[in-house]
């Protein structure tokens, strides 16, 4: 990407004989929020650590604002980091933690004081400035870590599963707050997570990683609509991935595509009709705005999401219909 804030080109990272990243390229525009999503061991954290400067790439380049930063140590990169464990200095108060980066940069006392107060106010912790980390809740510690990373006005913000240690309710609240703050500051952000919902609800673009490579990177909408292969489709939960049956099954009117590979059918593209015989419903999950039904076919379980009013119960026989446009072929991945 031309004029990108962060450009990662052909990055390879290896720990001894183990290759963590194998030719990863990625470009982030200014102000963009990109999530790195993948199972554990996929290399997402290695990518973050290489950008931060804590691991040295075996090959490839990392450009920040167009300049190669290979020779720049972490302290010269002007990158803010927030960890899952928050990594707050336990012997310093919240305010001292936030101040650390300003002191390191030689910001004069009065200016530093004002910026610390501003950063703490930004995350809503102005009244808790004197508390030590162990006197703060997980969510509050997370805010201090965020204020500490942002007060230095970094060019890039790296978030390493920052919300994973919070309980579900607080996590959802923090997702919204974090994204609102990121938008307001316009700070380019890389967000590492293994939580699909989190990645898709927060990011402008999601990069799906597997075995040290980026399988696909796109907006959440386009990723869901067009996963590049069967693995991505299953991992992000975009739809059903099924083997194409050799012969037709009674009660199943799916317009199977021609060719080799696996068939991909989005959950909301399946029409069900009551029938005397045919595949049966094996599970029903109420989702609030809809209902998810599992239909046992000979090729596997088909998961369909219908409106909550759909008149089906477990054990019912149904006729399954999928139009040609809604069933396409995917390479296995």
């Amino acid at each position, binding site marked *: 990407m031309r004029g990108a804030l962060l450009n990662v080109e052909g990055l390879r990272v290896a720990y001894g004989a183990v290759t963590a990243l194998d030719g990863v390229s990625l470009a982030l525009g200014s102000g963009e929020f990109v999530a790195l999503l993948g199972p554990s061991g996929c290399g997402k954290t290695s990518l973050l650590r290489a950008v931060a*400067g804590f691991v040295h790439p075996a090959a490839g380049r990392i450009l920040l604002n167009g300049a190669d930063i290979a020779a720049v140590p*972490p*302290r010269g990169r*002007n*990158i803010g980091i927030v960890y899952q464990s928050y*990594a707050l*200095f336990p012997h310093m108060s919240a305010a001292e933690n936030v101040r*650390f980066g300003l002191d*390191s940069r030689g910001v004069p006392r009065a200016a530093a004081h004002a910026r610390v107060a501003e950063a703490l106010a930004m995350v809503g912790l102005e009244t808790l400035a004197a508390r030590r980390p162990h006197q703060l809740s997980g969510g509050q510690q997370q805010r201090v870590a965020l204020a500490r990373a942002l007060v*230095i006005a970094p060019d890039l913000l790296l978030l390493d599963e920052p919300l994973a240690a919070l309980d579900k309710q607080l996590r959802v609240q923090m997702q919204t707050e974090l994204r609102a703050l990121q938008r307001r500051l316009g700070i380019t952000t890389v967000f590492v997570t293994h939580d699909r919902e989190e990645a898709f609800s927060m990011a402008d673009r999601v990069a799906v990683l597997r075995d040290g490579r980026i399988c696909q990177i796109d907006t959440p909408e386009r990723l869901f609509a067009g996963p590049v292969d069967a693995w991505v489709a299953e991992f992000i939960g975009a739809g059903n991935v099924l083997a194409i049956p050799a012969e037709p099954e009674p009660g199943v009117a799916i317009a199977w595509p021609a060719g080799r590979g696996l068939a991909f059918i989005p959950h909301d593209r399946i029409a069900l009709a009551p029938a005397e015989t045919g595949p049966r419903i094996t599970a029903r999950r109420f989702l609030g705005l809809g209902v998810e039904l599992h239909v046992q076919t000979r090729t596997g379980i088909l998961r369909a999401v219908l409106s909550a009013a759909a008149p089906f119960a477990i054990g019912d026989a149904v006729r399954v219909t999928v139009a040609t446009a809604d069933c396409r072929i995917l390479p296995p991945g």
Partner: protein
Amino acid sequence: MRHLPLAPLLVFYGCFLLAPGLALAVLSLRPFSPTLVVGEGWTGANYLTALADPFYLGLLAGTIFLGVAVTLVTLLLGYPLALATVRAGPRLKSFLLVVALSPLLINLVVRSYAWIVLLGDHGLINAWLRAMSLPAVPLDANMAAVGIGLAHVTLPLMVLSLVAVMERIDPRLLEAAASLGAGEWRILARVHVHLAMPGIATGSLLVFCTAISAFITPRLLGGNRISTISTVIYEKFTFSLNWPLGAALAMVLLGLTLVVTALHDRLFRAR
């Protein structure tokens, strides 16, 4: 019944630590008799001598100074060694640990004589200095020689205490400090030293208590010129035969150790 397995240990400590300790405490309260060694009756005179007489006060101050100096030297030498050990890969780590422990692998007396060979007026160090036409350094039977010898013996205690704590420091804290713009020295001074503080405290406690109560090293490396509380206690029991004063000095030394330990406990249990 739950504590029955502890019985052998209690008997052991009771017979060989508590009972002699009490006997020593009783002895320290007896008057000195030039003919009987230990006189009849009770007196606090021995403690008055041990804690008020300028000679013994000087001795106490000198011993504490020696302990503090040895603690600082081992801290200064041990911190970088512990840091290198923690940061090293597995193979280098075992090598550095052996290096750190090496003083414990040599017999105390042999080690002391080895230091005499190095440090003496006609020892290796001064021979080299003379060969290079440099002024000799006085390291023969003085406080510096005793300090060097003690620092060598106690260094493993410091390094092991530091390594134990440094191993548990979350590396992400140091990374976070680096990403915030801090250089190596700043990270060390503002973050690492604070996180290593429990190890510094425990190591210092062990080294200080070992140094002030050491006997063989001051005796051999200090010759007859250097006295610490330990060497004077030995002298009171074997040559001048003033057992009550020797016992009182021993109790003072024990008291000093207990005070330092209590201080350590107070400072670091609160954390």
